[in-house]
């Protein structure tokens, strides 16, 4: 079983460990619901080092990503992140990824844990011109610091105005080293940051962040709450909500696709499907109360007609809404927001209704994005070095 650099720290905290795609990871430390609420109301600290990190570099790095991904990387500015999809020739999704532009010719690609090997192989096989693909996952860790208090707590550790870092911006953390970075990204639906750094610094940063956040009720958070948080935020999970047989149109990620850019893998199929229309649509739905929707459960037409119209791909009990929520596919004719549908649980039928995603989103305070971004060289992890 693979272990992250923080494995011993999780055990010391008494985490319930689980096997996640061959990685021994914390499922929860105390309670999934408590950890979920900590992220929504204060601060949660996650080890997500099981995710892969790949560098795509060279004079043709942008050309390579434009050939492989649905987004237009000529439009991605320096120190900016892009959520994107990598497709196969049939327009099916190989993975969803976040790609950071670290330099004119340097990109950091974050891939899903279960897809590490497939993604690296695909990137290498389809690279364009002078491009180098380097899998740096083994030596690297990722910490996610998520929640409304994230910037306040991180600023006590990092001598820089992390609050000035805009959403989807990345900056170096110079005192950790030339290859340590902080980005205002995450997959929880709450404000937060992700820190990318060499394994040898992970333990120190984990301890320091937990200690700094303690007065604000910061919790270490496991994969259990990571899942409930992303569902509540309406965020799709690769392997559950989408796979190699799913196109971006079907899963409702149309906004990631730059159809106007020159050819990319899968574009032909996407154009064809756009003209023909999709045969299933991804929706979110809620139950007033009742059981938790789980993967594979049947979605049926409302009323007396119990005809199957689709199935659940993700679901949970939403701690913020205090009700069950789910996502899945239904026939396009049944996919309108507000439309009723049935959910079959243990042969019993429960009434549900389609809602707009996300199920929950934070109240936006006046944006910090307008304040100046931190200038390079101001990031000093004083207390850590």
């Amino acid at each position: 079983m693979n272990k992250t650099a923080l494995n011993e720290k999780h055990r010391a905290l008494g985490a319930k460990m689980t096997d996640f795609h061959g990685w021994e990871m914390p499922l929860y430390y105390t309670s999934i619901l408590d950890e979920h609420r900590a992220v929504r109301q204060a601060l949660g600290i996650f080890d997500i080092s099981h995710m892969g990190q790949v560098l795509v570099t060279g004079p043709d790095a942008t050309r390579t990503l434009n050939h492989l991904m649905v987004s237009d990387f000529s439009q991605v500015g320096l120190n900016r992140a892009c959520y994107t999809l990598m497709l196969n020739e049939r327009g099916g999704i190989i993975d969803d990824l976040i790609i950071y532009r670290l330099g004119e010719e340097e990109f950091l690609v974050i891939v899903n844990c279960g897809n590490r090997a497939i993604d690296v192989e695909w990137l290498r096989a389809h690279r364009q011109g002078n491009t180098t693909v380097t899998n740096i996952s083994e030596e690297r860790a990722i910490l996610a610091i998520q929640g409304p208090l994230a910037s306040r707590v991180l600023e006590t550790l990092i001598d820089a105005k992390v609050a000035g870092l805009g959403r989807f911006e990345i900056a170096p953390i110079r005192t950790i080293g030339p290859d340590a970075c902080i980005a205002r990204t995450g997959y929880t639906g709450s404000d937060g940051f992700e820190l990318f750094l060499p394994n040898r610094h992970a333990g120190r940063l984990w301890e320091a962040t937990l200690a700094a956040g303690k007065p604000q009720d910061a919790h270490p958070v496991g994969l259990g709450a990571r899942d409930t948080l992303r569902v509540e935020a309406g965020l799709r999970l690769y392997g559950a909500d989408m796979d190699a047989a799913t196109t971006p149109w079907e899963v409702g990620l149309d906004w990631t696709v730059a159809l106007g850019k020159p050819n990319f893998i899968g574009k032909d199929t996407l154009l064809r499907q756009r003209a023909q229309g999709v045969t299933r649509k991804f929706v979110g739905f809620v139950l007033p109360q009742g059981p938790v929707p789980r993967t594979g459960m049947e979605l049926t037409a409302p009323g007396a007609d119990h005809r199957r119209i689709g199935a659940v791909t993700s679901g949970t009990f939403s701690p913020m809404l205090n009700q069950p929520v789910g996502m899945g596919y239904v026939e396009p004719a049944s996919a309108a927001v507000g439309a009723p549908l049935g959910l079959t649980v243990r042969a019993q039928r429960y009434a549900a209704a389609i809602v707009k995603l996300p199920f929950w989103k934070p109240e936006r305070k006046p944006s910090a994005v307008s304040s100046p971004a931190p200038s390079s060289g101001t990031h000093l992890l004083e207390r850590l070095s």
Partner: protein
Amino acid sequence: MNIPAELRYTKTHEWARQEGTDVAVGITSHAQEELRDVVFIELPNVGKVVKQGEPAAVIESVKAAFDIYAPVSGVISRANGALAKSPQAVNQDCYGAGWLFAVAPSNPAELSSLLSAQAYEQQLQTPTPGH
């Protein structure tokens, strides 16, 4: 571990308590600890006939749904409707407010066939294969 001496237990972590002519049923402290975060409970309807060792209710945690087995055979005489609004009572007070249902037993001798507190505690201390 809280294992009240006056109750009877199943190997599948239910407890049973004689209450007048009824047998009240819930899950043990060990079981609620393992489940964590209980968010929904499906109780049997009053009048339903249940059989010892067969599923009678379902408890759902955030992660999964679990069958709850009837410790004794009989007819469901009461169900704890308050759990619809506060399923977390199972986590907070599994031997009290978190009780699930009561059975009017058809064969009262079944109750004495269940594990004593001591035997149940012993079972918990025996490592299960694969763990």
